[in-house]
């Protein structure tokens, strides 16, 4: 007889396979009195140091395998280890009660966990899991128990657990995880986030005592319906297999279409490429049918560290991404950091107006070596790559010439030292400051391409601080002033025989597709997940219609009128 259990569906899809019950190491804490103060303090200090080493390694491994976003959780764990109240509280308990370090840690962890669980917001409650994760790690370090020694079976399994912490899941071999199912946790739990990022079904808050189950129990996990079937009947397995293959066929069909070029019904072809920030993103972009990269953000190389990344490190990171992209074109945006983040070693301090401040290309007079090193690393890593480099935040011709000079210097000095460098690199700029759009005709002669950053172009043109939620909605790229700057930029570039891309959110907005096609945009760059949808949209449109639509849209006086017009001529639901 099969048994059915329900939970909250948090990641879609169907998994069929044997269950594996994850049982984390349990460290029993005994409270001991009359302990030696100095010894317990020293034990605590060495456990903290060992835990910090472990977390640093997990952080690095996670960043490389899953990307910065997933790795952020371990940065939070490091902050907890450095928390003066938490560590201070443990030390105080050791001193006041003369107890062992284990008991002091367990006490402090539960105190904070309970205070977090008492908050009303689910996001805050979920942090109780992090403090417990850190506490568990400290206890393991103290007792010499190995964490990270989880032995998954050699075959693919559906993982069942009471709860999963980031430290638990990071040890799993993802290739062998068919699905995830936990008794605790909600839609924002770590389990849910992980499942969606690796694309397996998951159910949380499962109403079933999983400790009754044994490893290898046959299971069906339906991540869309939120159901776990234990010991399914043969016909239930058949149904699940049919549903599973239908879902897969649909997915394959969408992806296959995404891999084909984006041509309009009358044969006009544009490039559809991805905005990325890591090698993991690059792999995802290819899965979604990206023909290349239109924006590789490089800030991640410079954040969360104390000194400039070495040339070797930069080369290694770029090479990893270029290798994934193969012979597809990659547009790299050079460093774009400003006073919204204080980065000591770059000389960036918090500023009252960071988006109008000392940032990006404006750094080259004071700190030319940062950009020169970045150029060198790209030239070294880019051998045999269709490499394109662009400079953000350009407002004047002098800046283009200054950056170009640095680029030429970097190239010459590498060649002089006999090192092979990338050949045929295209040199471009971002058009995101209104002055650059207005001067596009003058700038076009000095570059190989433009890439329009519509998020910032709208912010600067309309004098709207996008980080201020009271006005952010005013920064629409569909505002007639912004549209006219986009049109003018494309026209000026084409008059000079140069190509133009667009890498703001607008490129992935279905409403904008006919308009941008009609304006003659050559390259659309967007979040990987938007690519299949926008490509499909392009295939439904005729270029000649789009030209008329664009010409009409440019005559309209307000954002509302533009959006209404676009919706009326070609409904975006089509």
């Amino acid at each position, binding site marked *: 007889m099969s048994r059915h259990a329900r939970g909250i569906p948090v990641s879609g899809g169907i998994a069929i396979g044997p269950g594996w019950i994850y049982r984390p190491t349990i460290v029993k804490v005994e409270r001991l009195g009359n302990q030696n103060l100095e010894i317990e303090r020293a034990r605590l200090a060495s456990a903290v140091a060992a835990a910090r080493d472990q977390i640093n390694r997990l952080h690095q491994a996670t960043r490389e395998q899953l990307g910065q976003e997933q790795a952020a959780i371990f940065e939070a764990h490091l*902050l907890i280890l450095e928390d003066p109240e938490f560590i201070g509280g443990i030390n105080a308990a050791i001193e006041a009660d003369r107890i062992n370090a284990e008991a002091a840690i367990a006490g402090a962890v539960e105190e904070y966990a309970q205070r*977090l669980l008492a908050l009303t917001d689910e996001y805050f409650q979920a942090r109780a899991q992090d403090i417990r994760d850190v506490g568990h790690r400290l206890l393991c370090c103290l007792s010499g128990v190995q964490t990270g020694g989880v032995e998954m079976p050699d075959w693919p399994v559906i993982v069942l657990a009471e709860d999963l912490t980031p430290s638990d899941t990071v040890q799993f071999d993802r290739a062998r995880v068919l699905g995830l199912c936990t008794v605790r946790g909600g839609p924002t739990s770590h389990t849910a986030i992980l499942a969606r990022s690796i694309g397996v079904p998951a159910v949380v808050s499962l109403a079933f005592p999983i400790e009754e189950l044994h490893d290898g129990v046959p299971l069906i996990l339906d991540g869309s319906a939120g159901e776990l079937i234990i010991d399914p009947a043969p016909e239930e397995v058949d149904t699940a297999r049919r549903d599973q293959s239908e879902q897969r066929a649909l997915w394959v069909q969408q992806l296959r279409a995404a891999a084909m070029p984006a041509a309009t019904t009358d044969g006009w072809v544009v490039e559809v490429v991805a905005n990325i920030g890591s090698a993991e993103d690059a792999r995802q972009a290819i899965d979604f049918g990206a023909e290349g990269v239109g924006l590789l953000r490089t800030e991640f190389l410079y954040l969360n560290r104390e000194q400039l990344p070495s040339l070797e490190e930069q080369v290694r990171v770029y090479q990893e991404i270029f290798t994934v992209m193969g012979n597809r074109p990659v547009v790299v945006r050079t460093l774009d950091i400003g006073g919204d983040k204080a980065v000591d070693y770059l000389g960036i301090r918090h500023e009252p107006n960071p*988006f109008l401040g000392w940032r990006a290309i404006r750094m080259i007079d004071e700190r030319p070596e940062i950009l020169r090193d970045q150029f060198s690393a790209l030239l070294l890593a880019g051998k045999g790559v269709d490499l394109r480099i662009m400079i953000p935040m350009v407002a004047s011709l002098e800046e283009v010439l200054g950056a170009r000079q640095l680029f030429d210097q970097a190239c010459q000095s590498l060649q002089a030292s006999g090192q092979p460098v990338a050949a045929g690199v295209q040199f471009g700029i971002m058009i995101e400051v209104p002055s650059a759009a207005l001067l596009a005709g003058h700038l076009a002669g000095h570059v190989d391409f433009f890439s329009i950053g519509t998020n910032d172009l709208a912010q600067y043109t309309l004098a709207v601080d996008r*980080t201020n939620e009271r006005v952010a909605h005013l920064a629409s790229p569909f505002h007639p002033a912004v549209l006219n700057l986009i049109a003018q930029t494309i026209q000026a570039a084409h008059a000079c025989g140069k190509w133009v891309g667009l890498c703001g959110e607008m490129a992935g907005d279905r409403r904008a597709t006919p308009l941008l096609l009609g304006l003659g945009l050559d390259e659309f760059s967007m979040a990987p997940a938007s690519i299949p949808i926008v490509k499909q949209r392009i295939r439904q449109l005729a270029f000649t219609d789009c030209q008329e639509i664009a010409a009409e849209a440019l005559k309209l006086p307000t954002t509302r009128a533009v959006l209404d017009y676009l919706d009326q001529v070609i409904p975006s639901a089509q």
Partner: protein
Amino acid sequence: MPAAEVVVMHTVGLHARPAAEFVKLAASFPCEIKVCNLTADSKFVNAKSILSVLTLGVQQAHRVRIETSGEREEEALQALMALIESNFGENRG
């Protein structure tokens, strides 16, 4: 003692990355820094402690009060206010 109040406009409140940035910035100053959640009528906590800041449960549109005392107290207050007012420097496109 320098003190100021500000409304946190970030969608997640003082949580995740904003909380981490706030605490890291606070910890970079030598002075004592305290913060409380006026909207939830909380007690003051140590702004250099991530766990204490999280237990304030500061959500979007909550008002917080920051007090600094000691070496570089004015500078610390200004920096923390600027961080919150810039909405933690959300990513640009």
